[in-house]
């Protein structure tokens, strides 16, 4: 790392103090996100010129694009004040190197960690305290195991320095261009941190690659970028661990995920997100699958105030496959608008989408999906299944699938059902000696099983515990 970047991470108070002063004046001079800010970020990271240029181009696009506001029933983003975004970056830059104390976290978060049974050291890591150290260890372990085969797994900022050619080719050029949407553009301008995974040809990484605590380690982790390149005949399962509730002064998370699945390769991307309830989670995630490649998205969306997230896959090569398994849970004050998008752009492509949602205490879940079958994508087949479970009459559950079919030799099916938790099921379980809460919890566990069985056991257990926590006290 360069000395410029080191000085940011230096705990020397004077250096940090000076930096802060500089930044303060810069940010206060102009409201909103300015070119100066973007240059500063790039400079801090000692980035090559091309990356700075991409950031600046993204900034231009960000400034030109309107806020997404006209989708039917979309979450209310009126509180997302773009003018205030930059000031939100500042506190996190200050905390680089670990300035926050566990005790400073809100009680709600501390409580959740305790209930999850997470030990103190991990709590510190999860809360952003000293996470850098912890994450380095995670990376080291990975590298030792696979580096001989040429697998690369590292921090995205580091990848820009050390694997420049690969990053230059793929970074926001093919899968998620900044022009995709306003928040992708924002992300392109001020992204920072994230994971880089490169799997060479004919290589199977037979253990899930996990980026668990790392996201908090970076100052602007809320704009993290994940880039996965799986070369021909390779296989990898990447797990993004924001499965713990995060606390941050930020209230906007706008990440970017790009996955390239080459011929015959197989990538699974799993994530269980449980953002704090003051977070707007506006992500863009996209995969491009080449011939006979398989892409699998497994996602659980638990936290956040509002989420707009539609992982998408472009089935570009003949015989490519895409599977989505997603579960969303919305409680009080939450609006989880999530779904999946699949573009069938080649013959013999297949996709399946299985979406489950649970809404309670006035929360809203929405499945918003798009299946596009291009002219010429013969023998494409897709099936979409959405199931919603509702706990009470204050909650809302919507389903808004869109299907665009331009090819006649296809098989397209969509089904959705909505229902309350079955009185009979509850009664049956009660008659077997379970109390009402346990019975309902068991029904929910059964309902989300398709998701949990796709996750490694520790994530599945955690997912279940998170749902239990969410439901605590809300049943009866």
């Amino acid at each position: 790392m360069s000395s410029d970047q080191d000085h940011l991470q230096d705990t020397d108070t004077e250096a940090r103090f000076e930096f802060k002063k500089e930044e303060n004046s810069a940010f206060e001079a102009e409201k909103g996100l300015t070119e100066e800010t973007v240059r500063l970020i790039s400079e801090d990271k000692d980035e090559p010129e091309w990356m700075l240029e991409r950031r600046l181009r993204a900034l231009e696009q960000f400034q030109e694009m309107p806020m997404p506001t006209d989708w039917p029933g979309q979450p209310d983003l009126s509180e997302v004040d773009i003018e205030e975004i930059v000031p939100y970056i500042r506190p996190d830059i200050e905390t680089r190197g670990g300035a926050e104390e566990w005790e400073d976290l809100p009680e709600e978060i501390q409580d959740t960690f305790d209930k999850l049974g997470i030990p103190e050291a991990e709590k510190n890591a999860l809360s952003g305290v000293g996470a850098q150290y912890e994450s380095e260890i995670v990376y080291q372990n990975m590298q030792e195991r696979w580096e001989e085969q040429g697998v690369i797994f590292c921090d995205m900022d580091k990848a820009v320095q050390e694997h420049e050619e690969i990053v230059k080719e793929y970074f926001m050029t093919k899968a998620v261009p900044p022009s995709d949407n306003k928040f992708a553009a924002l992300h392109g301008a001020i992204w920072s941190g994230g994971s880089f995974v490169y799997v060479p040809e004919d290589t199977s990484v037979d253990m899930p690659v996990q980026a668990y605590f790392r996201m908090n380690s970076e100052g602007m982790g809320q704009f993290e970028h994940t880039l996965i390149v799986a070369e021909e005949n390779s296989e990898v399962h990447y797990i993004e661990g924001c499965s713990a509730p995060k606390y941050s002064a930020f209230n906007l998370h706008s990440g970017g995920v790009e996955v390239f699945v080459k011929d015959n390769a197989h990538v699974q991307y799993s994530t269980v997100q449980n953002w704090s309830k003051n977070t707007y989670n506006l992500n863009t995630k996209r995969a491009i699958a080449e011939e006979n490649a398989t892409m699998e998205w497994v996602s659980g969306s638990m936290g956040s105030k509002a989420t707009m997230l539609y992982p998408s896959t472009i089935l570009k090569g003949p015989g490519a496959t895409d599977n989505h398994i997603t579960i969303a849970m919305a409680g009080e004050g939450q609006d989880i608008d999530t779904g999946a998008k699949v573009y069938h752009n080649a013959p013999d492509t297949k996709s399946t989408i299985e979406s489950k949602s649970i809404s309670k205490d006035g929360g809203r879940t929405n499945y918003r999906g798009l299946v596009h079958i291009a002219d010429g994508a013969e023998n494409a087949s897709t099936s979409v299944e959405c199931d919603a479970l509702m706990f009470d009459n204050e909650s809302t559950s919507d389903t808004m699938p869109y299907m665009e079919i331009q090819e006649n030799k296809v098989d397209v099916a969509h089904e959705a059902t909505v229902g309350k938790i079955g009185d009979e099921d509850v009664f049956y379980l009660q008659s077997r000696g379970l109390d009402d809460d346990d019975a309902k919890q068991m029904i929910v566990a059964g309902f989300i099983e398709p998701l949990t069985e796709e996750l490694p056991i520790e994530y599945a257990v955690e997912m279940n515990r998170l749902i239990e926590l969410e439901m605590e006290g809300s049943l009866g």
Partner: protein
Amino acid sequence: MSAQVHANLTEAQVEQISGELDEPEWLLETRKEALAALDDLEMPDVITTPGPRHWTNLVDLDYESLVDPLEFAQEKDRVEAEGADVLSWDEALAEHGDLIEEHFGSVVDPQRDFLTALSTALFSAGTVVYVPEGVAAEDVKIRTRMNSRSLFNYTLVIAEESASATILERQTTGENLDGDQYYSGIVEVVAGENASVQYGALQNLAEDTYNFSVKRGHAHKHGSVDWIEGNIGSRLTKSSVETRLLGEGSESQIVGAFFGHEDQHFDINSRVWHEDEHTTADLVTRGVLDDEARSVYEGVQDVGRDAWDTSSYQRENTLMLSDDSEADASPKLIINNHDTEASHSATVGQVDAEELFYMNSRGVGEEQATNMLVEGFFVPVLEEVAVDELRDDLEELVAERLRN
């Protein structure tokens, strides 16, 4: 987004139309207000994908060249049922003025969008069906043959408590009509307590016609409004069929069928709002597309917070016969009450290759086999059509299209 058509429309024209129907002041005022509102109104909603992609472009249509408010030549047959009144507007206004004033515009907001307001301001053709309390009016028929470049049709159906009505409407185009045409039809149905209205419409307009229609019903306590919507003709159809289930135990069924060929475009919407307890809805639509035809389907099942014990089902199936056709669908569920059983499904596919092979192997030629499978595809929808005549007509039109 206002279309230029307004430039050619004047209050004087509206007054003239109103005068010819011998209308009361309130209706003239309603028309004038609708005319004045045109400046501020948007085109009807069309669904856009999270792309965003507009699926039906109404904005670029040149309404100015299509609309000629004072020319409304048409032939109309009305078949009345015993005990019920099936009247032209001028007759109806004379006989049931108060009733019309009470219900006109109560179901379809005259200013819900640009094209609806245009219809309200300019309608010159239409029918009022009044079914008094307890009367069963079967086989009411309204046939409209359009003989002018533009025709604005307005139908109001009032079924009082415990009344029932079966109404068949059919729109066709007369001969010797050249160039593009514009047909607009608004239908309002009020079904009182325990009343049931079944409204079947078969649209077979000439294929250079732009067709805009809104059909909407209010079903009160234990009332039902059932719709059958067949679309065969027109170049572009934008059709909305809607029911608000306002009363406890009310029901609605919306059955749709369309068959598009050449460059026809169908934008079909089925929507139902569950607003009270124990309400039931069933939406079923099947469509076939050939050549470069395109269909856009949006179905909405909206379950309100007070709609306890709701059952709501929706299914839409599209069969594509050609590689150049396109089918877009979005069946939406909006659920605000958890005591609900709701489901929707949509499928798109081609004629089943195995079935085709089976029939070929039994000596049925390719074309005939395809035709039989297309006819077979419509059967589940035709079975839902309780009105024999409409079912026969629809079957015949499908067969006719297949022969061509």
